[in-house]
């Protein structure tokens, strides 16, 4: 039998549905692969062999009875450790939640279970999703399967690495400023941040509530769409959930026809500060788009240079408030409770011991931005810039169907390279952040390797709110051309891990 871990989620779903292979066999193949390579990659914080095999057995039974639970029944995945999963450790990459077992499932996890999708385990991430490299995980960094000395992106580096290392055919990420799209870009995979409100946030542990959005990650556009269709939809438990039908993402991923479409290139997201190999691949992608009969138009979004500044005030402000709940009382770590100390002393000692330096930095920054006397100058002003960014998008979408840019200014950098320079780290998200500020859907699509380092480059596609299907239509059209050109997906060019370094 061919290696099951090399197949796409769509191929696996088809074989499982036709009973050519069982979900148990597929799940075991991925668990074996995790056993074999995760010592090098460290994509997983927790592997749930027993639970995954039980779900796989149930999926096989449902299929045998002629009642498959969903289009992805029996296809396993990796789940980012930011989602509450009943009975499974959920740490958010933080020591403050070490050992915490949620007593409930996130709505997204409930949907995965109802869809018959086995959960292989919980994937590594920057602590509370604050970071662009997964180096801020309290449990050690994840390594990029393209080059183990490099970062897999962040915060969802575990979710991007597990699919590029063939430990899972697909995974769930969450994206507050680029944490699905930037990891996808630097690992040669596909990642989608759905429209804000398109996927329930109930049980998605909050970093910044007005920006956070969970979404699908996979190795192909179609697989990403299939997973998107399973996890999206209205949820009364999330008051910001959008009560509208899920966009027809799977149909769009199967269509891939951009003839006559208008594709806008964002003038402000490119040029200076972008690596030469990133720019070169992006220019080629533009030519491919034109060859497919679409019109490429440059559009200007003049407020975008201020997006990073606005984001690094809004996000820490919301985070400083959201993370106040980690007080050593109701869950997780408690330090110094010796019977003599007050609750405030215990709280302060617990938070100092449980939070890593990046989390502390952002809590302090957010506390500052929300302080009396600074509120108007910082948080208030950032909220106004947010309005300007939304207006820029609105006027751009009057002219074009989707917008494109490079997903990240560089390819994967070396582990440790930017760890002591928070500002340099923040610049990784310069192209992805405006999308979160405006609540729009965005995709990162692999468009080749940079000539100077042979590492993957991603292109970002952005659509208007609740027009997520446009991402998949455009993404599928470009992907088809690239697959024809390369004779396979970009991920097929990844060096083999086993017996490698």
């Amino acid at each position: 039998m061919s290696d099951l871990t090399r197949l796409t989620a769509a191929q696996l779903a088809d074989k499982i549905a036709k009973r050519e292979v069982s979900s148990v066999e597929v799940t075991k193949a991925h668990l074996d692969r995790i056993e074999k390579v995760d010592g090098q990659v460290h994509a997983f914080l927790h592997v749930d062999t027993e639970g995954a095999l039980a779900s796989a057995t149930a999926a096989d039974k449902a299929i045998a009875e002629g009642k498959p639970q969903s289009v992805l029944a029996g296809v396993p995945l990796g789940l980012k450790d930011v989602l509450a999963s009943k009975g499974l450790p959920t740490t958010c990459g933080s020591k403050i939640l070490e050992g915490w077992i949620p007593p409930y499932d996130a709505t997204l996890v409930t949907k995965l279970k109802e869809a018959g999708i086995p959960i292989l385990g919980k994937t590594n991430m920057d602590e509370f999703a604050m970071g662009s490299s997964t180096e801020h995980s309290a449990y050690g960094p994840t390594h990029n399967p393209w080059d183990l000395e490099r970062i897999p992106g962040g915060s969802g580096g575990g979710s991007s690495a597990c699919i590029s290392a063939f430990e899972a055919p697909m995974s769930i990420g969450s994206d507050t400023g680029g944490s699905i799209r930037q990891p996808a870009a630097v690992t040669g995979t596909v990642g989608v941040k759905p429209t804000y409100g398109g996927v329930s946030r109930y049980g998605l542990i909050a970093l910044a509530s007005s920006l956070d959005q969970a979404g699908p990650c996979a190795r192909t556009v179609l697989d990403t769409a299939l997973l998107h269709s399973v996890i999206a939809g209205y949820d009364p438990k999330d008051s910001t959930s959008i009560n509208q039908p899920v966009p027809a993402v799977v149909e769009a991923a199967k269509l891939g026809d951009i003839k006559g479409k208008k594709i806008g290139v964002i003038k402000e997201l490119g040029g200076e500060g972008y690596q030469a190999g990133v720019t070169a691949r992006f220019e080629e992608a533009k030519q491919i788009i034109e060859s497919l009969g679409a019109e490429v138009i440059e559009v200007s979004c003049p407020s975008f240079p201020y997006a990073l500044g606005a984001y690094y005030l809004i996000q820490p402000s919301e985070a400083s408030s959201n993370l106040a709940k980690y007080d050593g009382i109701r869950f997780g770590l408690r330090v110094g409770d010796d019977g003599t100390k007050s609750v405030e002393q215990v709280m302060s000692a617990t938070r100092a011991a449980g939070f890593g330096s990046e989390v502390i930095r952002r809590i302090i920054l957010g506390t500052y931005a929300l302080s009396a006397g600074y509120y108007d100058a910082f948080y208030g002003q950032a909220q106004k810039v947010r309005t300007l960014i939304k207006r820029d998008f609105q006027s751009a979408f009057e002219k074009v169907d989707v917008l494109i840019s490079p997903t990240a200014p560089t390819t994967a950098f070396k582990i440790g390279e930017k760890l002591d320079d928070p500002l340099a780290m923040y610049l990784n998200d310069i192209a992805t952040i405006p999308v979160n500020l405006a609540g729009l859907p965005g995709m990162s699509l692999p468009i080749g390797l940079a000539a100077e380092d042979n590492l993957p480059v991603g292109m970002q596609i952005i659509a208007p709110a609740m027009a997520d299907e446009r991402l998949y239509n455009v993404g599928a059209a470009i992907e088809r051309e690239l697959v024809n050109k390369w004779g396979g997906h970009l991920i097929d060019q990844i060096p083999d891990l086993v017996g490698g370094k």
Partner: protein
Amino acid sequence: MSGISQDDVAHLAHLARIDIPSDQLGHYAKQLDAILHAVEQISEVAADDVPAMSHPVPMTNVFREDIPGVSLAPGQAVAGAPAVEDDRFRVPRILDEE
């Protein structure tokens, strides 16, 4: 806009209930100062008549019928707590001595 000093960091850390060791205050102050200088350019761009935006989608209050749903049992609710007594969260001393 003003810079951020070690004393500011100590004060903010107290507000945020994080015991930052005194020998690390300078390190955080330096980094936060650099970040604030990088973001302060946003004060120049938005005119007074630009409305503030707290949320990307239009927000309305969400109501539902007042019908009891399924809740966690007390034992489940406290199962993840660091200290529990009689199905309740055990809390350190909440009053100061004086």
